[in-house]
């Protein structure tokens, strides 16, 4: 059973090495691929220096396209399972390992690491450094809107619709390598997976407060983001089903 962990990275030279080291420590036996989404800093060089394979996009294409590249690679290289996490250090690899374990145990086809799902017990021996994740007000509104919409659309309860800490098996790789919306990847992909009859599951995880940079969400952008989400989910309900995702 082969596992790929891929890390989409766009100008994350500062944090990437630590993330790679973290993955190596906590997810043993997995191959690592960094999908460099047209970075203009030394992201790709540093990743190569760290000894991992780097798929460098010739220009920036957005998170959705970068994630799809990872799924494509996993599918074509014959991996049985794959997982992805952010390159900015918000996602502890120990938590990714738990998300991954769910698909490896075949309890689901696609597993989402959720910041907001009810915590079970603190993990033994795992104490990620840094502040725990706390959402701002605008973000909380957006989160709740999408939570509601997606729950209505899929008739399945989702708490963290935009989490990009996920693990998947080959059924999902097949689906996502062909259909992965570049604009609204996180949410639409969940809807798509449920519609195609795949088992999608959330696992509560700890995420850390972002160390550098700031969130892109201003109120106006949030409103636009939510509006776009509405359209995407509504339209997604009427998209034709694919025969490709056989069980």
């Amino acid at each position, binding site marked *: 059973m082969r596992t790929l962990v891929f890390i989409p990275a766009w100008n994350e030279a500062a944090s990437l090495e630590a993330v790679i080291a973290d993955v190596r420590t906590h997810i043993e036996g997995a191959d690592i691929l960094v999908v460099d989404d047209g970075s203009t800093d030394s992201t790709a060089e540093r990743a*190569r220096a760290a000894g991992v394979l*780097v*798929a*460098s*996009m010739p220009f920036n*294409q957005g998170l959705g396209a970068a994630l799809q590249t990872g799924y494509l690679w996993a599918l074509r290289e014959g991996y049985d399972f794959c997982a992805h996490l952010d390159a900015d250090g918000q996602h502890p690899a120990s938590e990714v390992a738990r998300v991954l374990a769910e698909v490896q145990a075949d309890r689901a086809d696609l597993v989402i690491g959720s910041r907001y799902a009810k915590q079970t017990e603190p993990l033994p021996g795992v104490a990620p450094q840094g502040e725990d994740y706390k959402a701002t007000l605008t973000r909380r509104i957006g989160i709740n809107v999408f939570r509601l919409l997606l729950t209505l659309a899929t008739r399945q309860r989702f708490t963290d619709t935009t989490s990009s800490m996920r693990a998947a098996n080959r059924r999902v790789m097949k689906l996502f390598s062909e259909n992965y919306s570049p604009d609204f990847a996180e949410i639409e992909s969940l809807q798509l997976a449920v519609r195609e009859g795949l088992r999608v599951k959330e696992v509560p995880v700890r995420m850390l407060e972002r160390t550098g940079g700031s969130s892109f969400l201003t109120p106006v952008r949030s409103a636009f983001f939510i509006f776009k989400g509405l359209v995407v989910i509504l339209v997604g309900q009427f998209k034709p089903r694919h025969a490709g995702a056989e069980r």
Partner: protein
Amino acid sequence: MIPTVLAAQADKVSLTAQTRIIAAALAILFMLLILDLIRRDRLQERYSVIWFVAGLAMLAGAAFPGLLGLVADLMGVRDTNVALFSIVLLLLLGLALNFSVIMSRQAAQITRLAQERAMERAHEQAARDDLERRLNGTTRAEDTATGPNPDA
């Protein structure tokens, strides 16, 4: 003095000779521009058809002003100006939508190209790493045993 008849004053559409000549000249110039763009590879043939049709329609309107009145009658519009503007507006709207569709398709193609290129780069890197490892391996093997094996 040349008696000028304004379109608005007549029941029927009656453009002055002046207007018709200008309109026809513009239509012909427009079609020449399209041809030139194709000739210089700035416009692909498959996207030029619609513009030719538009140019021909302009020319037809200039040559036979009665046509516009006919179209207005068909649409049930009394004012031919309204008919003209509606048609042009709808046509432009359709064209803009058509371009959005084309653009979306091309954006998807560009993304896939970028992804393929990215994966090729990763393959190149893997091949390079592999080669390096094997070269290092054979140099070490040379010291102890036979020469380098080109098939290894």
